[in-house]
């Protein structure tokens, strides 16, 4: 199915790098971020552009392995490889790179990255309790100070509220698009859902991100639904981040006849988590909102199960597929508990796939995935 709003979005996002360079020329500052625990609202509030950084392609991994151990996860290697090759235009444009200590591998990679780029490390707590909130609050206060000092601005509460407003509208617009997957059948493939979220994350002008997503949601939302044959099993993909270049499992699932209707990871649906409506202290609001993200780095990680249960219900899925990058210990270990929860509490079939970005295991994965879909049929 071809949608003119989607085509227009693709054409616009093809020019993401040029747009960003134009913004830089006009004096805007750019802050690259690897992780959604970094509240992009703080960056927006200081007048800079928060932007995602490359880390989803296999090409840069060989270069990274000249420095990093091979056993590290492909996401860390890919990200670092882009830095070594100087091949990520968003990283090149970044005046500051914010890095969250989401795992040991990243933490140590950031030390090496700091030799090449101005890195600022946010120390992420690994729990979500009251003490962790106090700690995280302090981290974000320090980060705010760092932004103010680097960019010679003062971040007022008003500016923060304005940034929160932009962020809320962005989250809502992205959610409208991703929620199209709730329809039966989903008008967008899982690959398209991924592509839209991925491309949007590199768009430097936030108002444009929002209006583009809005127009996709309204065009496709208004279209006549296709006949629901009910033949394609509806899959909730959960787990590690994915992007263009690290999409092979979604591709194989859909080539094998499944429909990936929701992608519960930090490149997709975790980005839409709405910011609660409160009017007291904007920074405290961001502290609570960001720390509640259910990444496997949290121990325990109760929100993960709650989210999976909620998404499985809302998107009426037939099965859950948990994707783990090789070497990602937290997601790999957590998969055992998630399997138990999905199979026994949600009574849904569950498949964990552990892989990397390379194409070498595609045929083996195809067998596993097809066998899993045969169980569903």
């Amino acid at each position, binding site marked *: 199915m071809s949608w003119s709003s989607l085509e227009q979005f693709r054409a616009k996002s093809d020019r993401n790098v040029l747009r960003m360079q134009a913004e830089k020329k006009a004096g805007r500052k750019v802050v690259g971020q690897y992780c959604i625990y970094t509240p992009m609202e703080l960056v927006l509030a200081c007048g800079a552009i928060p932007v995602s950084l490359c880390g989803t392609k296999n090409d840069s991994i060989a270069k990274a392995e000249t420095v990093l151990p091979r056993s590290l996860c492909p996401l860390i290697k890919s990200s670092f490889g882009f830095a070594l090759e100087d091949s990520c235009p968003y990283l090149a444009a970044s005046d500051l790179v914010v890095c969250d200590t989401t795992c040991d591998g990243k933490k140590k990679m950031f030390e090496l990255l700091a030799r090449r780029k101005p890195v600022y490390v946010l120390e992420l707590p690994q729990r979500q309790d009251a003490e962790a909130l106090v700690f995280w609050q302090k981290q974000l206060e320090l980060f705010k100070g760092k932004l103010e000092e680097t960019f010679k601005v003062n971040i007022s509460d008003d500016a923060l509220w304005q940034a929160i407003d932009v962020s809320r509208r962005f989250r809502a617009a992205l959610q409208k698009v991703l929620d199209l997957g709730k329809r039966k059948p989903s008008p967008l493939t899982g690959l398209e859902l991924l592509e839209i979220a991925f491309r949007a994350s590199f768009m430097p002008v936030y108002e444009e991100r929002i209006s583009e997503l809005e127009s996709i949601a309204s065009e496709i939302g208004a279209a006549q639904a296709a006949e629901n044959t009910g033949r394609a099993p509806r899959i909730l993909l959960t787990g590690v981040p994915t992007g263009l270049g690290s999409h092979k499992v979604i591709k194989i699932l859909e080539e094998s006849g499944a429909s990936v209707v929701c992608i519960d990871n930090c490149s997709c649906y975790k980005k839409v988590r709405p910011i609660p409506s409160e009017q007291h202290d904007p920074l405290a609001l961001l502290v609570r909102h960001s720390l509640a993200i259910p990444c496997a780095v949290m121990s325990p990680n109760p929100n993960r199960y709650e989210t999976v249960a909620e998404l499985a219900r809302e998107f009426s899925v037939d099965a859950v597929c948990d994707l783990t990058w090789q070497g990602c210990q937290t997601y790999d270990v957590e998969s055992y508990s998630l399997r138990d929860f999905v199979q026994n509490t949600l009574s849904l079939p569950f498949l964990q796939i552990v892989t990397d970005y390379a194409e070498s295991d595609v045929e083996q994965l195809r067998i596993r995935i097809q066998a899993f879909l*045969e169980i569903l049929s």
Partner: protein
Amino acid sequence: MPLRFAIGIDAGSAQTKAVLLDSISLALLAKASLPTGWNPKASAEAVLAKLWQGFGEAQACSIVATGYGRVAIPFADKNITEISCHAKGAVHCFPTARLVIDIGGQDSKVISLAEGGAVRDFLMNDKCAAGTGRFVESVARLLGLHIAEFCALASGGEACAITSMCAVFAETEIIGLLAQGAKPGAIAQGVLASIARRMQGLAARLPGTGDCVFSGGLAQSPVCAERLAQELGCPVLVPEYPQFTGALGAALEAARLAKEKNA
């Protein structure tokens, strides 16, 4: 005229196997296997020709393909994965089966079955050659033995500990053991024990208890089956022709297709 014949082809990485069933009575009419060459389609054609040898010429039939080469067989009516096929084949031989352990040429798998024989869950070791038929074959070759002779050697006495998790390094480890004067029998014991332990490790991750079926070429060796039973701590059932379990499962699916067409 009703379709009387149903064929399952299992285009594996090492061997291509085929089974011919009477689509109504499900009686086994013929079976054949050949080494898979570089061309799975040609191997499948050759094995089909062999299968029909007793019949003068090929008859009208429905065909289901499985195995790594399943998509390369254009004359199959359908292809399904070997996980489904091993389960169907195992349940056909042993209706009480609740667990299937298959050690194939380039992977090994554990399949948990629900009551009634439907696949409930499965786990595969497909990342690494250790714990596969290919691994046993390469060690046997190192000792200048055929795989059956190698397995027979493992029937008793001391076992060497083989600890490498990688087939290539296990080979290196074994060369070292031989240099230290280890006996081939002890090495064979060690190799089979290491495979059985790996399978036990996979099986322990799946729920369910009940009869366990051992399929795939290695199951032809009683010593292998015994080793596996020891590690699992339960008896292991072996089909009459364990290496044909996947092809049998595919043939059963072909028979179901034939019945659909006949109806």
